[in-house]
């Protein structure tokens, strides 16, 4: 799994490239995300279009990133697969924990607004 990032204004758009965010890739994901935060990227739009599956370890990495950010910024998500959406629904993370959008454009616009 790799993270491809680009800036759109002051928003960091990160495309998560790889079919699974699980125990094998969670470490890489988390350290890369924490590096972004430490370099001052506080508004991040994560594009999960390539990710088919996420397990509890992957979710823990994402939640840990969110906790690192604290209240000083926001992580929004888009492109969630059916399985990933279900995980967010079951764990109720889609209810006010993360804002989830259909595509990158909506996500970036929401962060700008």
């Amino acid at each position: 799994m790799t993270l491809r990032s680009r800036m759109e204004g002051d928003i960091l758009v990160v495309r998560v490239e790889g079919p699974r965010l699980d125990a094998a890739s969670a470490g890489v994901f988390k350290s890369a995300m924490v590096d972004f935060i430490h370099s001052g990227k506080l508004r991040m739009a994560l594009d999960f279009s390539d990710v088919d599956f996420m397990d509890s370890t992957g979710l823990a990495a994402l939640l840990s990133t969110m906790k690192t950010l604290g209240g000083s910024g926001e992580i929004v998500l888009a492109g969630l697969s059916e399985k990933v959406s279900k995980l967010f629904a079951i764990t109720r993370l889609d209810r006010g924990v993360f804002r989830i959008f259909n595509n990158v454009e909506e996500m970036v616009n929401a962060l700008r607004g």
Partner: protein
Amino acid sequence: MRHPPYTSKFLNRVLAHGLVYLALMLGASALAYFLAGVSPRPVSFLVVGTGSLGAAILLAVVLQRLKETERSLARRTVALEGAVKHLQDELDEHDRDRAELAVRNAELHGVLDAASQVSIIATDQRGTITVFNSGAENLLGFTAEEMIGKATPETFHLAAEIRAHEDVLRQEHGIEAQGFEVLVALARTGRHDTREWTYVRKDGRNLQVELSVTARRDVDGRLIGFLGIAVDITDRITAQEALLHSEAKLEAILDTAVDGIFTVDVLGIIRSANLAAARIFGYAPEELEGRPLTDLMPEPHRTLHPQYMANYLTLGVTRVIGKGGREVPGRRRDGSLVDLELAVSVLRSGGEVLFTGILRDISQRKADREALETAHRKLASRQAEVDRDLSMAAAIQQTMLPQGDVCFAGLDAAWSYHPSRIVGGDWFSLFALDGDHAAACLVDVSGHGVAPALVSTSLAHALRPGSALWDSAIPEEAFAAPEEILARLEREYPLERFNMFFTMICLILHIPSGRLRYANAGHPPPLLLCGDGRMEHLDAGGPMIGLGLPQQGGVLTLCEGDSLLLYTDGCIDHQDEDGVQFGTEGMKQVMTAPGGKEAKDVIKRLEEALRAHGASWDPEDDLSMICLRYTPITRC
């Protein structure tokens, strides 16, 4: 006949002269007869008689002479004809010889010129060049025209070399010579003289030649000059130098090679060995050459090796030759053993069979390998220890689960627990809080393996029966509300603590009334199959524990025969080969499927269905399910 008939002409002339004489004689007789007429008769008769007689004699003589002359002429003519014929023959022969000579000469010139890479130069006695063939022109760059009759070979010899050779002649042969004479001094004495010289070409370049000088003598053995035949040996010398260079290089390579390299003849005698080979066995390289190969072997090879050789040479049987690297023991000079890797190949060189061996000291490698094997054995034994520990941990974890089917007064329960590894982060419990209350908890700690298992163990301790965690803060309730339990755990287990979160369902059932209070932190919603066949979700809930977010509880009342299914997300995430998940729908279908209604029947059906869904029963997540059937009138 090409020549006029000399003989007949001459004879005719002689006959003509005879006739003149005869006429003169007749004339004289007639005159005498006339005179006799006019003179006294005796005188006339005498004169006439005498005259006639004389004329007759004269005539006879003349005729005789004429005949002799004719015979002599005939003889001489024959001789002359013979001589002329002989001369003619000789002339013909001479013509033939000359033609032949011309052919030979042309041939010789052809040969001389055809030898375009061989310089052939002839000189007269004093050294002036008389023949300079095309080979000489090619080699030296001078034309024959420039050289013949105008120069001596000194023109294209190195003066210094000639002077140096003066000394050689003086010291080795006692001959004093200078200049051109140095080149021919030995040939002049009839000796064969071939040696290397340097020719200097017209363009100044030097050329290494091998020059043979011989004396030219006429048929009587008189010296008429010298012949020098030279071939360009620059290439040969270059090739020789290259060969020497490559031999030196090969030697250098052999001597810097890390591997020992040696050759052995069919008698088992070492013919050559490089430095590394000598070093491996503790000898100097020259000490190895000529030594029997068996000196480098320990027993039993030392004794058996001649037999190995014989087997190969007579039967072609070999265990080493052409078999790549084989591990063999070697014997050093001091008798100590060395582990070697040996590769042997056969070399047929100039009709001789030699064996080439390449060997490497693998003592270190072998020691390394043994160390590695030891380390591996140690590691394997440690791994076995870890596995044993894990098995024990799993067994201990199992003891923290309810033992056997639990049957409370009013509650029929069954469960299934399948950690994805030996130990896992799933844990559940089911117990009586008091005579009227039963509690059930299902926990799924994020991640897999030992760390989540330990966190779940820690949670099991926190949630043990009688723990203060269950105590109610308000007098109206005997026990704390499930969402309050979750909130208390939230404070104890923030995400940062173990870098893990957990999902959890907690429920408390008041058995006499069927009042069920529950809270769900991030778990799939429990399924409720009502006794009348309706299927409901227990939807109240919040996110997983660890984020510090508020939780939400729900309350409902169970009816006789209602079945409640709690399960971890591993059950619904469980995939088949095509990645299709078992899903909540799968759970519902199995629950409503015909069959036994008791909790253990439902669990059994679910296990079978899950096993059938994924061909290999190796779920990626821990799978746990608890089925609770509310039967208030049942007594266990």
